[in-house]
């Protein structure tokens, strides 16, 4: 059973060489035949199939396209060319507390965040107590979120986003926040998801974490999928200095 299918996915950003932001400038430059773009391929012809229940790590240097990879799956970005097929429900953890309104209380933000994720109010009411308990914010839930520490915000964001039974969980480097105890409980929750057959796609710079959670690893470099295989194998290739410039040879 497939959970995710990406075929020939390319995400191309067009960066106007002269910054054209207005209709007036566009019209003037267009008349002069002077609209030029630099193109940046954040992802280039990436194809892969991820099966239900797999835990897949995505590694690579900064700017390799890891976050874009997740954004394309999460439908934040539509690929310029190629297709993405998602089979099942998706819980994106791209940035914790992205939709939080600092002026509103933690309680109100739980409902707001739930709404942003497309969940109904009744659904959130049912989950409310569990979310607050997991985030350990019982004492502060009616205080405005702007008074929270960044760790508290992250805990709340994580608790809201993961209090679902998703088929596919997308995680982008979100465990770097929070104290050790909380990180451990996050990991516990991930292991729980895995046991239930949830597909996990994890982007991280922490190779230890990837090794610990994932059986398969995708290595992205310059927007291209350089390697796709068993976690230990790909990680050791990624680490070995001889593999410093692996794509250039191929392309």
């Amino acid at each position, binding site marked *: 059973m497939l959970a995710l299918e990406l075929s020939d996915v390319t995400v191309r*950003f*067009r960066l106007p060489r002269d910054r054209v*932001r*207005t*209709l*007036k400038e*566009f019209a003037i430059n267009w008349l002069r035949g002077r609209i030029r773009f630099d193109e940046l391929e954040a992802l280039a012809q990436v194809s892969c199939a991820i099966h239900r229940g797999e835990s897949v790590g995505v590694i690579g240097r900064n700017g390799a396209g890891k976050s874009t990879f997740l954004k394309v799956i*999460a*439908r*934040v*970005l*539509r690929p310029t060319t190629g297709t993405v097929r998602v089979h099942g429900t998706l819980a*994106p953890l*791209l*940035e914790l507390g*992205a*939709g939080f*309104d600092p002026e509103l209380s933690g309680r109100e933000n739980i*409902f*707001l965040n*739930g*709404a*942003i*994720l*497309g*969940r*109904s*109010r009744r659904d*959130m009411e049912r989950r409310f107590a569990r979310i607050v308990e997991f985030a350990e914010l019982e004492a502060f839930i009616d205080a405005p979120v702007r008074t929270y520490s960044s760790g508290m915000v992250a805990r709340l964001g994580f608790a809201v986003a993961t209090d679902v039974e998703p088929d596919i969980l997308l995680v982008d480097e979100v465990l770097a926040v929070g104290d050790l105890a909380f990180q451990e409980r996050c990991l516990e929750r991930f292991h729980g998801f895995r046991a239930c057959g949830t597909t996990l796609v994890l982007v991280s710079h922490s190779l230890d974490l990837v090794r610990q959670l994932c059986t398969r690893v995708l290595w992205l470099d310059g927007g291209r999928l350089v390697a796709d295989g068993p976690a230990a194998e790909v990680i050791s290739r990624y680490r070995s200095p001889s593999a410093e410039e692996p794509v250039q040879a191929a392309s």
Partner: protein
Amino acid sequence: MGTAIREIIQYRSLLRNLVARDVKIRYRRSALGVAWTMLNPLLMMMVFTLVFAHFLRFSIAHFPIYFLCGFLLWNFFAQATSWSTACFVGYAPLLRKIYLPKAVLVLATVLSGLINLALSLVPLALLMLVEGHSFSIHLMFLPVALLLAAAFALGVSLLLAPLCVLFADIAQIYQVVLVAWMYLTPIFYPLEIVPPEYRVLVTANPMTHFVETFRAPIYSGTLPDTGTLLAAATAAATALVVGWVTFQHYSDRVAYHI
């Protein structure tokens, strides 16, 4: 289109949140709060009555009511569509990180405009009481008139919202267009005053028909005539289709530009 609508229904909780937030933010920073929505049209009405009924001596019976009907509907349209020009930019931090059906953001601006309009119907009703204007049974038709105007505003907003992300100055250009557009809509003058050779400018303007549709039951106590109603319905349907098609075409590109 079916999936898009189903998705909007799934995100109804978000829609409710956005509308509530729009309304709350608008009134939070003012001492008079909601009262401003009611006072503002009344003040405008006083100024326009002074200028047009007394300085320029337009002979329109019950000028304040005539003006206020047109002005409230125009104000709804102008506000809702202006907000839509800013809505994607305003929610850019969110749109960069989380998927949501973007039509919900546009729908929210039109709905909060409608709430604003509903609130400002209160001073209109008060004015009618004070002036001894009769409340016709045809007021029952008002929801239809509002629905048509809202559909038109939604269509225009769906068209504007993504284009304003691609070209930042469309929002400014639109503000100029709105001023010209307002003067070509019979808000503070009757259609009959327009010389025949220019009348096509006003009758070809869809807002004329929405204003007339809205004004008939309140001001004249009649149903709008069939021609006006048909013109309004056609304009609303056309705007919705054009807006929706444009929106579907461009809204995916929005994330690349904000």
